[in-house]
């Protein structure tokens, strides 16, 4: 019924969100001043804040959110599991571990690509482990995800434990909470190629995900290469979530929420969920990031904390609904 309405809603929410994100921050600037800075002589304070701080932050929120929404939708389609999500499958924790190792053991300082590359490696390892151990049902997969998350968290605790200085330990913990504060063009450009490559991998699985609605045997009989599909989804998730996490820290629940949010509008066909889920993932994270700036707290409210706080009740609701519908 609302199949034709959602693009309009999405576009309106996107425009509003971007304007809010560009307009809010620790320093209040008159929107007219901000807009005027585009044409006025540079550098000016409004221009620096707009171009160097708020714009990259806004774009990163959109890119990271879209990554989480897209990979959540793809994983749910691949596993035919409504609880699948990079966070719950341990992929985010794996990516965080990889990035922490890169940052705190000095690799990232000498080689800029170390953080995204190790993030991707960690994500890949975690995803492969979860998918191998957790084959055979919704519950098994979630349990495997919990186990892998636990393992990666143990690795992170170890990194904290062995942190070269108390200051580094403090930084690791705050970074793990997930945040887009003061991220710049550098980080955006560093992550972008990996994000795009991951998106392409995930997008090419669309047709296979549809066929998988009929189960693996029928999908295979329809000419789908199941192992290739699995590999593409795995690589796509690892590339995009790994690179995104290396920039923003671990951000949970967007990947779970976005697909469920759009299904009532676009139907349950996995291929039709992918793009809307990416778009709503971007919207959700953008608004969450704006909220961290608007909610007055003495300490900065971390983005990952906010998404977890807002996402957990939804997760509970999903679990109780599954308990009612599944045996």
């Amino acid at each position, binding site marked *: 019924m609302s199949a034709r309405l959602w693009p309009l809603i999405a576009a309106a929410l996107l425009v509003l969100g971007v304007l809010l994100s560009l307009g809010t921050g620790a320093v209040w600037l008159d929107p007219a001043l901000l807009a005027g800075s585009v044409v006025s002589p540079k550098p000016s304070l409004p221009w620096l804040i707009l171009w160097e701080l708020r714009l990259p932050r806004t774009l990163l929120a959109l890119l990271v959110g879209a990554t989480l929404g897209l990979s959540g939708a793809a994983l749910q389609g691949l596993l035919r599991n409504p609880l699948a999500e990079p966070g719950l499958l341990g992929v985010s924790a794996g990516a965080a571990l990889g990035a922490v190792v890169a940052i705190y053991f000095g690799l990232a300082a000498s080689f800029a690509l170390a953080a995204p590359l190790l993030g991707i490696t960690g994500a890949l390892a975690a995803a492969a482990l979860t998918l191998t151990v957790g084959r055979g049902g919704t519950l098994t997969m979630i349990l495997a995800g919990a186990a892998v998350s636990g393992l990666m968290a143990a690795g992170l605790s170890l990194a904290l434990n062995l942190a070269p200085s108390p200051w580094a330990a403090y930084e690791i913990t705050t970074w793990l909470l997930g945040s887009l*504060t003061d991220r710049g063009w550098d980080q955006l450009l560093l992550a972008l190629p990996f994000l795009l490559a991951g998106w392409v991998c995930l997008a090419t699985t669309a047709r296979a995900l549809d066929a998988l609605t009929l189960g693996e045997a029928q999908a295979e009989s329809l000419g789908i290469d199941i192992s290739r599909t699995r590999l593409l989804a795995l690589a796509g998730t690892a590339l995009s979530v790994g690179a995104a996490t290396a920039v923003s820290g671990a951000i949970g629940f967007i990947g779970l929420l976005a697909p469920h949010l759009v299904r009532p509008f676009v139907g349950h066909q996995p291929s039709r969920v992918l793009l809307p889920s990416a778009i709503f993932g971007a919207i959700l994270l953008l608004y969450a990031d704006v909220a961290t700036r608007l909610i007055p707290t003495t300490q900065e409210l971390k983005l990952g904390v906010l998404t977890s706080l807002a996402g957990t009740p939804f997760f509970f609701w999903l679990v109780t609904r599954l308990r009612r519908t599944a045996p």
Partner: protein
Amino acid sequence: MSTNLCSDLLLLMLVPKERIASITHLATGPAAVLLPGAADGVPTNRATAEEVVAQVPDLILASPWSATALRRLAAQVNAPVVEIDAANSFADIRRITREVGQAVGEPARAEALVAQMDRTLAELAATAPERPIEVVAWNGGDAVPGQGTLTHAIIEAAGARNLSARLPGAAAESFGLEELLAARPQAILRGADRFDAPSLRDSSGEHAVVQAGFAGRQIIYPATLHACGLPQSAEAARQLRTALERLPPGDVRW
């Protein structure tokens, strides 16, 4: 025996190293920079209660937040514990230096160090610039030092104006990039020590606008002398004055 980095350094300045049972392992790096050679051969500890029993020192320098187990065992081996609290001003430094000097039986040495510090401060005050330069000690937005911190005192002593003075205490309150840009400091002070471990700021965390916007307007300060109240903290103020004098004239470009 000293169980805290700040008292380690104070102890190294006040007594000959033969009289030191041990200092913490944290002190070796800073001591090598601030007091070259002073810590060579001095045993190190990890501030555990077991080491108190093993070393049986005559006196233990501790911080107010040292482990209670350490205090209990210290009482059992009859070693008095002298608590050194954190210094947040030059007055604190005078008091603490004299306290430790008393405790270790070197009051004259302590007085000399304090007098030296006060001479430096007086000199700086006499030659203060007419228009104070505006600065912020900024290390990534977390824990920007405001009013009532030693860093604030050092900045004032150097004849500069701390723009984050509106923040109370060693503010963990956020002072983000946007506020930094809006405050338009003429220089930002970056805490660093040569023995610093790699951190987020070194790699992906540092925003390009800081490097570009404050090119030539970044002053590295010895973080240890701002964290620990030592008579040498006056030297940090003198270094800062020198660095400020070398700044390019005028304001930031925006």
